[in-house]
């Protein structure tokens, strides 16, 4: 028993404590879990809830970006999820724990529909066709106003719970679980789950991936289905948290946001998208309180400056500052160390060489 606990502690020490990026990440997660209890301010809890939802949304965009499919119309999945949950909940009176999965399933179907053109198109063509999808859906919503509420949208949905703390925990754990699943799915080093390395191969060079015997059609469909699934979950959560669904979820602007969050936070890393969504959503809310008129202008200037300064995104930038890869054994090290913690090789080679 003592040995087991000792092993567990040693794993914890080697796997998390020794790697500053992971330590920081787990501290942030721990803080988010405690935040629901610690923060008494109801308004701030609500803001954090939305940050959770948008984090999940941005991560689902990033999953597609990881596969090399630049989706400029990711709002389509979100909007479909939100509208499906709203319609099922309002018109048929189905309880929440069923409507959100239903939204996710329609998100999957939407993803497969978008994937049909996506299989044949590439690069800018793909980006623009996906951009068209939410706008076409918006047209569909205007055509059937009695089901979808038309321009006004649907309102009066049942909230997830009356207490905002409980809502926060539901969204937080859904977000954490989904992001963990997506993160594992895109883990390129894994020997059990092959999707990560295959998605990465499709992104880097689709033709070579096909030539090496990867069924790219199947995996691209899978990527779109997964993106639609998690986007749909985010949409369903959003619908029930806001209690209102409007056509704004299908706007061009709304589809651009996950891209802003994802690239700002570090593209193709999943967790980076979540970090970006949290930082930028909280930042834009702060700006809303301070300078309501010029909010978007200042926001845009800040993001442009940050991206020009750190084009690899904020979370990867921080990680590169905190961690050094050992030149000999490739294991990750704390930035303060002089020599590798595993193989004791000197980390700063260029400094030790006499000039």
């Amino acid at each position: 028993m003592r040995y087991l606990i000792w092993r567990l502690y040693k794993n914890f020490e080697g796997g998390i404590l020794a790697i500053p990026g992971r330590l920081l990440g787990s501290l942030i997660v721990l803080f988010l879990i405690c935040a629901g209890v610690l923060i008494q301010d109801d308004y701030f809890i609500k803001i954090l809830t939305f940050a959770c939802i948008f984090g999940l949304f941005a991560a689902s965009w990033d999953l597609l970006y990881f596969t090399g499919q630049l989706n400029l119309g990711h709002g389509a999945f979100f909007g479909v999820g939100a509208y499906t949950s709203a319609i099922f909940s309002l018109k048929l009176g189905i309880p929440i724990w069923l409507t959100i999965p239903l939204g996710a399933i329609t998100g999957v179907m939407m993803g497969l529909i978008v994937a049909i053109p996506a299989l044949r198109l590439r690069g800018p063509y793909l980006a623009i066709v996906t951009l068209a999808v939410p706008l076409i859906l918006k047209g569909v919503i205007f055509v059937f106003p009695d089901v979808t509420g038309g321009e006004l949208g649907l309102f009066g949905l049942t909230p997830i719970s009356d207490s905002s703390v409980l809502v926060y925990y539901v969204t937080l754990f859904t977000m954490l679980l989904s992001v963990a699943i997506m993160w594992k799915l895109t883990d390129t080093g894994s020997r059990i789950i092959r999707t990560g390395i295959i998605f990465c191969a499709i992104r880097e060079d689709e033709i070579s991936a096909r030539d090496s015997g990867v069924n790219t059609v199947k995996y691209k469909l899978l990527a779109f289905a997964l993106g639609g699934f998690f986007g749909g979950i985010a949409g369903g959560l959003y619908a029930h948290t806001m209690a209102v669904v409007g056509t704004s979820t299908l706007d061009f602007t709304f589809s651009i946001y996950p891209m802003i969050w994802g690239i700002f936070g570090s593209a193709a890393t999943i967790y980076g998208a979540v970090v970006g969504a949290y930082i930028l959503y909280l930042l834009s809310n702060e700006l809303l309180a301070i300078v309501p008129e010029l909010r978007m202008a200042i926001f845009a200037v800040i993001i442009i400056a940050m991206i020009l300064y750190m084009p690899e995104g904020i979370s990867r930038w921080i990680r590169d500052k905190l961690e050094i890869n050992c030149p000999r054994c490739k294991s990750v090290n704390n930035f303060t160390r002089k020599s590798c913690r595993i193989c004791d090789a000197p980390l700063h080679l260029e400094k030790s060489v006499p000039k």
Partner: protein
Amino acid sequence: MQVLISGIVIGTVYAVLALGFSLIWGAARIINLAYTSFYMLAAYFFYIFTSLLGIPMVVGVPLSVFVAALLGVSTYKFCLERIRAHDTVVMLISVLIAFFFEEIVLAVFGQQLFSVPPFVEGYRELFGVRVLKQYFLAFGFSVALLVGLWIFLSRFRIGIAIRATSQDKEVVNLMGISEKKVSLIAIILGIGFVTVSSVVVSPIYVVEPSMWMHPIIMILAIVVLGGLGSLKGSVIAAYILGFSEVIVVNWLPMGAFIKSAIALLVMVIVLLVKPEGMFGVVFEEERL
């Protein structure tokens, strides 16, 4: 008849906008989503110079074109040029620039709509339909721009250099043409196109801060529908989408809401049948 005339005018305007855009796309290899925000800015400068400051039309029009184009080229020079290699980041930054300008305009002028005075007053009967003279002017100007671009691209050395750059960047560099300079010239031309057509067209429409959003989506649809790198395709696609938009607005109930949806649906269907666009050439993969 009304449908036919406004379809032709809107199609021509779209054709000019799309050609400017595909010039930038072809030569500089950037997808500049801030492109139509200079369309919006030029219209606002036009409003400031002529209606607020009372500068005569002859001076005010070139001045507003110049100022807006200067802004456009400087955003390219200072923000976009250094990240040209990263497609996605370029798109992101340019859309942020567009948001930035929209918000600035919104803060200065508010949400209210403006209308700018037309160059020429009055209308003329044409086949029993009253057509504003501004329509004729817009049409004539746009056609002149299109023909001018055609001649420029096929007769002049710089024009040929631009076409060569859009075909193969590296070989152009090997041939002793500065690819960077050609991109800059293409950007200046493209932004110039959008600002000129903006001051000509803006008397027809209302001027508002979010007026850049609809044109950029239509332009993207047109350029892709026509096929990248095909000027002829862009012009034809512009007429197709312009007509479909006008027909939907005039003949279908609630047309104004679903006009872009129908136009985009047309684009998606064509791309499903022919993935490289109507007149697109299948490019070889870019060499790394």
